[in-house]
């Protein structure tokens, strides 16, 4: 181990340990060669630990929490890893200990300084997706950052850093000896670590696992608290690299394309809602928090008085049943499927799409609406950072996302959150001010649990909610709490319906529940569901109003990833190729005996969705299949006329 002999420290340390050119190995010469050989590796390990502690202290400071809270937890080590790797890499490359340490610390200080400022001004921590800002670094970016970080201090820090770098080069001795094997070893290991981070191999997902790191998917701040900022960023990086790596199966696509639509199920070349319609309808989608019809419970027979609008729509044949990809929570999964047409089943490793798909551009229904000349807004009366919607909605292309901060301070609350009536007020306000056809995605929150104890505004209305006899008090209370808030949602659906009708403009109004609620006592007390299946396999209602009766929802069972295609069909907007295939899947499954095709359709759509999300061209066979469907429909229509 040639590099261990002739160990020389930076000048300051050298003097402290006594006399120039005297190595630490010689000063600690207790047992001859062994101590001398161990001195440098041990010192290096201690320095790495020191670096980790300093970095953790910076991390805690940037979050404004107790210094060193959670130190030596799993997140502490994973957070330190990238800085240690950078330190070792710089040491191997530059062969200067102080310089490497200094630069690693500077990098950490810059990152945590940015984090501190971002939390201070934007109330959210630095995220992996911020790399997109740096990718497009130009003068305006600099000007923007200039508003947050004082240029004088920034320049002072840079000058100071340059002076220190020059000083370390002048006074710092080489750490490794020439042709040192250890230097190559350190270089190799650090480069390998960097390559792993860039490539994101699957095993790294086990190291940066969400459970071990304490990742809280809906709260980036809490994730940083548990995992450290660098740990959280690397977690996102690894997730990003792994979660989207799902193979496209040409066989599955081929099998899906070969399915033939029966003539009765094929779409006619000129659908009822023609794309050439003179006035484009306004399109409003309401995703209602935890909304389902309790009538599907065994013990509940008739709740028409509690959900009158839903029942009115049912009698008009405007209600179907929708399979949402989540139960009890995970709203964003349904939302993602509706807005992108991409089934969550296509990406089984993705639990939280907005967080795990860190892309600047996500193909979505919004872009299709834009191309059709629509303005597109999202409205959700909760913190815009929740589930990272701010970022995701921007990537999807919404013109503006109206979140809680855009609601008036006087907005009515009911339950734990802002009431559905305030959401309707906002939607109506936007439509009233619209100067062109408008698409609004409204996401409610009033019906959010927990339901065991939840505040209610109208206690008299709450008390009037009938509960089946013999239910335990806890189940009765939970049921009343839940139904009280979905009754409000139903009332607001009716209000919005009336408002849209009164405008004398064509409209498409879609309403659906994002998932069934995670009720603790009700399902058991009600003796389960009418169909005998468990709660997490039940469907939510979906309502489609307007759209010239293009394809009424009447009793149709769909998946939430089909909703975008339904909306386009109802609004008379020409479906782009991917949405035409979703429509095809919809019709195949809806046709008599379509249930048998479920696996073939799902596998085919999953592979097509992967191509779609990656911006890859769809196979030519998809166009042929859609054309063939249209011909079948045309033939059927011609035959019908002839008869």
């Amino acid at each position, binding site marked *: 181990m040639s590099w261990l002999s002739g160990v020389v420290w930076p000048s300051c340390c050298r*003097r402290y340990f006594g006399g120039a050119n005297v190595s630490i190995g010689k000063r600690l010469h207790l047992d001859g060669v062994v101590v001398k050989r161990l001195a440098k590796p041990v010192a290096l390990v201690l320095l790495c630990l020191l670096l980790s502690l300093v970095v953790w202290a910076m991390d805690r400071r940037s979050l*404004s*929490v107790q210094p060193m809270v959670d130190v030596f937890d799993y997140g502490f080590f994973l957070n330190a890893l990238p800085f240690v790797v950078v330190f070792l890499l710089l040491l191997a490359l530059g062969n200067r200990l102080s310089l490497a340490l200094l630069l690693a610390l500077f990098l950490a200080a810059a990152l945590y300084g940015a984090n501190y400022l971002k939390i201070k001004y934007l109330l959210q921590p630095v995220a992996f997706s911020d790399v997109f800002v740096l990718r497009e670094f130009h003068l305006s970016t600099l000007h923007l950052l200039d508003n947050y970080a004082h240029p004088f201090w920034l320049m002072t820090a840079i000058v100071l850093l340059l002076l220190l770098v020059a000083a370390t080069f002048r006074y710092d001795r080489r750490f490794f000896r020439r042709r040192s094997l250890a230097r190559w070893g350190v270089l190799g290991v650090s480069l390998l670590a960097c390559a792993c981070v860039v490539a994101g191999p699957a095993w790294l997902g086990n190291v940066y696992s969400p459970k071990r790191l304490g990742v809280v998917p809906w709260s980036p701040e809490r994730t940083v608290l548990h995992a450290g900022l660098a740990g959280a960023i690397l977690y996102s990086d690894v997730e990003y690299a792994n979660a989207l790596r799902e193979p496209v199966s040409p066989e599955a696509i081929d099998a899906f394309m070969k399915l033939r639509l029966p003539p009765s199920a094929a779409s006619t070349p000129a659908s009822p809602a023609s794309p050439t319609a003179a006035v484009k309808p306004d399109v409003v989608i309401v995703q209602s928090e935890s909304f389902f019809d309790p009538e599907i419970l065994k013990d509940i027979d008739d709740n028409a008085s509690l959900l009158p609008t839903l029942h009115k729509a049912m009698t008009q044949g405007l209600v179907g049943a929708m399979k949402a990809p989540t139960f009890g929570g995970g709203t964003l999964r349904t939302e993602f499927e509706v807005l992108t047409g991409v089934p969550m089943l296509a990406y089984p490793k993705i639990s939280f799409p907005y967080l795990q798909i860190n892309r600047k551009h996500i193909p979505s229904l919004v872009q299709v609406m834009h191309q059709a000349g629509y303005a597109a807004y999202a409205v959700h009366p909760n913190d815009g950072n929740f589930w990272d919607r701010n970022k995701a909605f921007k990537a999807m292309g919404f013109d503006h996302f109206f979140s809680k901060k855009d609601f008036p301070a006087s907005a009515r609350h009911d339950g734990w959150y802002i009431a559905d009536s305030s959401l309707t007020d906002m939607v109506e306000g936007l439509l009233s001010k619209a100067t062109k056809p408008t698409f609004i995605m409204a996401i409610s929150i009033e019906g959010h649990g927990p339901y065991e104890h939840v505040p209610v505004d109208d206690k008299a209305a709450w008390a009037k909610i009938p509960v089946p006899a013999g239910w335990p008090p806890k189940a009765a209370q939970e049921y009343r709490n839940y139904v009280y808030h979905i009754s409000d949602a139903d009332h607001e659906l009716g209000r919005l319906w009336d408002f849209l009708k009164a405008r004398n403009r064509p409209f498409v109004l879609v309403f659906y529940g994002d998932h069934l609620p995670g009720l603790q006592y009700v399902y058991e007390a009600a003796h389960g569901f009418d169909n005998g299946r468990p709660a997490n396999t039940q469907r939510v209602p979906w309502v489609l109003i307007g759209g010239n009766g293009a394809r009424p929802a009447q009793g149709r069972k769909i998946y939430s990833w089909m909703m975008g295609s339904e909306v386009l069909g109802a609004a008379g907007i020409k479906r782009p190729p991917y949405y035409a295939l979703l429509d095809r899947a919809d019709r195949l499954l809806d046709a008599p005996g379509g249930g048998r095709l479920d696996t073939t359709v799902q596998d085919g759509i999953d592979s097509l969705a992967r191509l779609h999300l990656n911006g890859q061209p769809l196979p030519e066979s998809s166009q042929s299949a859609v054309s063939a469907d249209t011909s079948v429909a045309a033939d059927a229509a011609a035959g019908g006329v002839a008869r």
Partner: protein
Amino acid sequence: MNRLSLLRLAALSGALLVLSGCGRSVSFEVSPMHFFECHGPNTEVRVKWRVPHRIKLPISIYVSRLGHPPVPWYASSERVGEQTTGVWISDGSSLMLRDAHGKVLARRTVTSDDCPKTGG
């Protein structure tokens, strides 16, 4: 005086300073500091404080949710005291003890974990 002696003197002075502070430092205890979210995402905590005579009264206790600016919660002209919060302390909530000038004397952060699963 050479450099080594200076360093030794500095180290000795530092140690003396630290020792002289013992017994007269600010005490700020929060209990529990860590909880499991078995009864929901929020909990209440007991806060105890003791401040030496050199600290100007009244003291105040600020609370901040993670990523949000601190807001005042409690103020007292007592050097020793304790108080219980409501059930609104969540993972990452910090409590800060401040003197009359607003200087942060101590900061404690409460953290939480998911409720451990029982049984299979």
